[in-house]
């Protein structure tokens, strides 16, 4: 608003007084929300369980609900990856959004058409990956972090066959070092393949001019962040369809 208002003369003065128009709105909304909060607090008590007992681990132990997406990722990736690397990249990914999205349209108003891919990507990351994993973690995970229906009895002795195997093993590779090399190759291929696909996609959807204006730095940052984001559904798919545990197995890290 600031620039455009200064650059051009305002054709119409669409400004209204903060008092009473905005203040009135804020007051009313605050009032309603506080009434709602009070009713909620009068009817539902905050939980308080038995006193802390470090020798008695509950099964399942769940993180606070807003972190259950991260805990759910532990099913598919090791803790250093799901708990440290991916959260960091989520934050980095959010921070870079204003710098990789150079589309001048849709600044200050709702519009879907001009920013279709940006919005779809955000919704995929936020609503599908983040919110849905939280819902799964909250309502569909029971003892042993096994899947249960919300209405199903939490059987602590439920036996789930551990049939997961590593991808190289699945493909018949038995030698340790060949398997590691293959894993490295598979992950490298994933990234390179993704970047190639992304290049083709941007070229097709946005055109060559756009790509030149956008620049290699933005293209690469966006591509890598998206590749990491898509690695979660990719791994989910491999796990659910083929029981794949790890793709890369080394003495130091497994992915």
């Amino acid at each position, binding site marked *: 608003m600031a620039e455009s208002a200064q650059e051009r003369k305002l054709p119409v003065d669409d400004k209204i007084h903060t008092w009473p128009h905005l203040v009135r709105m804020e007051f009313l*909304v605050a009032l309603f929300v506080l009434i709602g909060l009070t009713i909620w607090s*009068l009817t539902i008590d*905050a939980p308080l369980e038995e006193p802390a007992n*470090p020798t008695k681990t509950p099964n399942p132990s769940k*993180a606070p609900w807003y972190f259950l997406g991260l805990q759910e990722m532990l099913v598919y990736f090791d803790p250093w990856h799901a708990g440290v690397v991916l959260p960091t990249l989520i934050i980095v990914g959010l921070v870079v959004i204003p710098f990789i999205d150079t589309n001048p349209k849709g*600044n200050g*108003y709702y519009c879907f058409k001009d920013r279709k891919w940006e919005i779809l990507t955000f919704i995929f990351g936020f609503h599908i990956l983040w919110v849905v994993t939280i819902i799964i973690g909250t309502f569909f995970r029971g003892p042993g972090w096994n899947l249960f229906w919300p209405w199903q009895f939490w059987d602590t002795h439920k036996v789930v066959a551990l049939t997961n195997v590593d991808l190289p093993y699945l493909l018949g590779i038995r030698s340790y070092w060949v398997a590691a090399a293959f894993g490295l190759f598979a992950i490298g291929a994933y990234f390179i393949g993704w970047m190639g696909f992304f290049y083709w996609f941007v070229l097709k959807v946005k055109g060559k001019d756009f790509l030149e204006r956008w620049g290699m730095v933005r293209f690469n940052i966006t591509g890598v962040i998206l590749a990491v984001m898509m690695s979660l559904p990719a791994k989910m798919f491999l796990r659910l369809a083929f029981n794949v545990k790890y793709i890369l197995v080394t003495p130091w890290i497994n992915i």
Partner: protein
Amino acid sequence: MSPLEKIKNDIVESQVWKAIFRHGYDDTPRNRVMMVTSNVFLHLHPAKVRRHAVRMRFTWCMGGLTFLMFLMTAITGIYLMFYYRPVAEYAYADMKYLEFDMPFGMLMRNMHRWAAHAMIVFVWLHMFRVFLTGSYKPPREFNWIVGVLLLVLTLLLSFTGYLLPWDQLAIWAVTVGSNMARASPLLGYEGPFAEFVGVNPIYDARAFLFGGGEIGPHTLLRFYILHCIFIPLVASILMAVHFWRIRRDGFSGPSL
């Protein structure tokens, strides 16, 4: 002039009254501006705003409500702090005491808890709205970054508070949440490459967070200070920056 009006007049014209209130309540454009600019709280707003910015369907009120929830947790939190001791022997008993013996104790605790949860939901929705209106685009890139930091702080505020009741839910949820730190590459003793760095269970990222190798009384004190002092302080400063930048950069809207 009736006696009542005269009394009113005497009060309103008195030096004391005028020292406090700079203007009357007449509905004039000048007064409307004064209402906002002469009030320290209201003057966070500009004196005039564009029409679309007032509409609920533009902002969903989410930024403001996030702030409201923050204020509610601060107010109810102070009440709770009067009765709560962050010491392992007392913490749980104090919670029970607060729930059953303190006037409005349970209500304050509930409001604190639910407002914190609401704040998280609201801040997510706020971010989503800012994304949908493209309000992070120039010149507001920096405020988006401040927002992301606020988002992280909001989650950490809730997380550190989760431990304080010192019940089973608290310590195990925080244990699960903090085990990540143990797995940090290089910095955690169960993380990749730990053996090259020389971290161990009592000297790694999680031990730093916990104040020891295991979750315990030291962790409780640490989380209490983070929860009640450190993170709220940093968040308040960032909110001040956030609000100031909204004024500086101008509120987003369609160009005229």
